[in-house]
C-alpha cells in the first residue's frame, strides 16, 4: 500500500501533466473555455428550479437554487471524474501501447482534472452565498475531507470500470445510463431531509423503513451531498448517520477495485 503511494508520488509530475493536458485539450479551441465547467451546473440549477415550481420540493429554510447547486457540485465532480476515469485507459491507448508508467495514473489524472473544475465552481458557490446573504462557518474545514472521501468513491468505480472497459467497451457506453439513474437515487434534485422524513419520521414503508433508509444511504453520494450541504450551507457538522453505510461499502469496494485494476493492468497493452 505504502509502496503504491510512493510510486504514485514519483509520478506526480506525469499526473499533473496529464491532468493539465486533459484541461488544455478540452478548452483550447472552445470559445467559452473554462466557463463550460460552470455553465453545466448553472443550467441544471435553472432546469431543476423550473421543475420544482411544478412539483414542489420542500427545501426547508435554504433557498432551493443554492441547495441544488451545492448538491450538483459534488455530484458532477463524482460523475464526470468517474466516467472520464473509466474511459481514460482506452482513451490513452497510444500511450499504453508504447510507454510504461503505472496505469492508475490515468484515472487519477481524470480526478485531478475534475478537481480543478470543482474549484472553479466554488467561486460560483461563494457568489451565490453572497447573493443569498449566507456566511461561511468554521465547519467549512470539513470540505477537503468530504472531497477526499468523494475521490475514494470515484476511484471505486473508475479503476474497475477502466480495467473492464479495456476488455468490454460496453462499460463506457452503459455508464451514462447508470449515472443518470444514480442521480435520481441521490439527493440532488431533492434534499436528503425529505427522504429522512418520509422513512425515519413518518415510517412510510412500515417496518421496512429503517432498512430502506440504510439501503438508500448505501449510495455514498447520499452521504456526500448531504454532508456538503451541511458544512457549507447549514453551518453544521456532517450527519454521520447518513454516511456510514456508504463508507463501509467504499472500504470494502476500493481495495477490490484496485486489485482488479492492478491484475488487469499488465495485459492492457495486449488487449487494448
Amino acid at each position, binding site marked *: 500500500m505504502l509502496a503504491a503511494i510512493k510510486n504514485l508520488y514519483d509520478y506526480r509530475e506525469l499526473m499533473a*501533466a*496529464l491532468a*493539465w493536458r486533459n484541461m488544455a485539450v478540452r478548452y*483550447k479551441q472552445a470559445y467559452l473555455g473554462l466557463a463550460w465547467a460552470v455553465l453545466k451546473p448553472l443550467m441544471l440549477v435553472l432546469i431543476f428550479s423550473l421543475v420544482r415550481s411544478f412539483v414542489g420540493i420542500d427545501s426547508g429554510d435554504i433557498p432551493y437554487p443554492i441547495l441544488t447547486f451545492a448538491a450538483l457540485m459534488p455530484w458532477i465532480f463524482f460523475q464526470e471524474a468517474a466516467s472520464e476515469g473509466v474511459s481514460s485507459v482506452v482513451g490513452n491507448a497510444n500511450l499504453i501501447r*508504447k*510507454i*510504461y508508467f503505472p496505469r492508475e495514473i490515468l484515472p487519477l489524472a481524470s480526478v485531478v482534472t475534475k478537481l480543478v473544475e470543482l474549484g472553479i465552481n466554488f467561486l460560483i458557490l461563494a457568489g451565490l452565498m453572497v447573493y443569498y446573504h449566507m456566511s461561511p462557518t468554521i465547519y467549512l474545514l470539513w470540505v477537503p475531507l468530504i472531497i477526499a472521501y468523494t475521490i475514494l468513491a470515484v476511484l471505486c468505480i473508475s479503476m474497475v470500470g477502466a480495467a473492464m472497459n479495456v476488455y*468490454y467497451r460496453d462499460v463506457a457506453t452503459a455508464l451514462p445510463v447508470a449515472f443518470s439513474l444514480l442521480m435520481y437515487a441521490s439527493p440532488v434534485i431533492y434534499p436528503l431531509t425529505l427522504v429522512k422524513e418520509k422513512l425515519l419520521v413518518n415510517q412510510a414503508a412500515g417496518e421496512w423503513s429503517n432498512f430502506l433508509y440504510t439501503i438508500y444511504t448505501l449510495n455514498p453520494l447520499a452521504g456526500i451531498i448531504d454532508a456538503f450541504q451541511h458544512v457549507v450551507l447549514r453551518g453544521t457538522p456532517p450527519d454521520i448517520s447518513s454516511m456510514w453505510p456508504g463508507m463501509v461499502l467504499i472500504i470494502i469496494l476500493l481495495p477490490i477495485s484496485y486489485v482488479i485494476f492492478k491484475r488487469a493492468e499488465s495485459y492492457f*497493452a495486449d488487449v487494448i
Partner: protein
Amino acid sequence: MAIIEVNHVTKEYRLGALHGFKQTVHNTLARLRGHPVPERPLFKALDDVDFKVEEGEVLGIIGHNGAGKSTLLKMLANISVPTRGNVKVHGKVAPLIEVGAGLVGDLAGRENIYLNGAILGIPKTEIKRKFDEIVSFAELEEFIDTPIKRYSSGMKVRLGFAIATSADADILIVDEVLAVGDLAFQRKCFDRMEDMIKRQGKTVLLVSHNIRQVERLCTRVLMLDRGKIAEDGAPNIVCNKFLEQNNIKIKALHDRNVATSQIPSQEITLVGTDLLDDEGNITDKVKFLDPCRIRIALNVLKPLNNVTFYIGIHTTDFVYLTANNTAYHPVDLPTGRHEIELRLNSMTLLPGVYCFFLWVGTPEGRTSFREENISCFQVISSDYAISRQRDRAVTYIPGQWKLPGETRFIES
C-alpha cells in the same frame, strides 16, 4: 552483472477476436456444467527466448516481420508481461519505441515538450534545462508556439525524437526510429545515437530492418525467427545469415511467380529448368565465385531450323546482368524434347537472388521463345564482407591490389 536478463520468456497471444456477450455467457455456462469449451488458438509471439545483455553492450535485434522483435522490446520496456519466464532490467529505460507517442495535436510544440517529457519520466527541471537544446535539435525554433496539428509529419517526428533522446536513461530501447525524417535529419539522429553509444557508454537495444545500420552500431546481434532466437553473435556473422535468409524469402516469392508468368508459345514450351553444381547435382544455391550449370528442357512443337539460344541472368527487378548466346552455332530442332546446358565458370555476382532468362530464335532476330524469370537461384557467401556489398553493387570482378609500402600485388 548483466543489466538486462531475459529468462526463458514466452509470450502467447490468443488469435481471433474477443467473444461477444452471447458466446461468453454460453461458454461460461458450458464450463460450469463441466463441458469443454473451444479455446481460441494460441499464437506464440516469443518462444523461450533467453539472453543477457551486459552494461555498455549495443545489441541489435533483427528478424523478418512478425519475428517477435517488437514484442520483445515491449517486455523489456515493461509495457507487456511475458506469459512464462521473466525479464529483469536493472536501470532506467528510455523507450524510443515509437517516437512521438503521446504528442497532442491541439497543444503547441512548447507544451508538448513538457508533456511528452513527463510521459517519458523526465523531471520538469531537466526539461527546462534542456529545452533550448531540444528545440534547436528539432529545428523548430520558428514553430515552437504553433499547435503541432499544423506541423508536417517530419516536424512531429523530429520533435518526438529530440524529446525522447534527451531522457537520461541507462538503457535505450530503439525501434526503427532512425527510418524517419529526411536524409539530413536521419544523419543527425544517427550521429546522436552514435554519440550516446560510443561516448556516453549507454546500453542500447536497437531494432532495425536496416542491416547496415545494425552492423555499424552494434557490438552483438540477435536474430529472431518466429519467436525464437535463431542466431546470437558477432554482427558480421549474424547479419550475413540474415541477408541469406532474406534472399531465401525473396527467392520463394519469385519461385511462386515463375509458375504464373509463363506465356504460352506456339513453337516451344518450357519443360523444366535445373540449376546444377559442377558435380551435376541439382541445387538452388551457388557459392560466390564457384562454377555452376543451368540445364533447360524444351518441348519443340514445330520443327525449327537455324535457331540459336540466349541465356541471361537478371535481378529480381529485371535489370539484365549477363548474356551468353550461341549466335555462331545455329542448330536445327525437330519436334520433340530437347535439352540444353550452359556452364558458367565463376559466379561473380554478389550474394543475392537472381533469375534466368531464356530466348530462342534465329540469328536474324525472329523469336520462337522468350521468357524471363524461368528459374531463380541464390548466390551465397559465408563472408559478410562480400554479402554486405550487395546493396551497393551487383557484381564483382576479381582483382589484385598494390598497397602503399608493398611491392607486389595482393588478392583483394
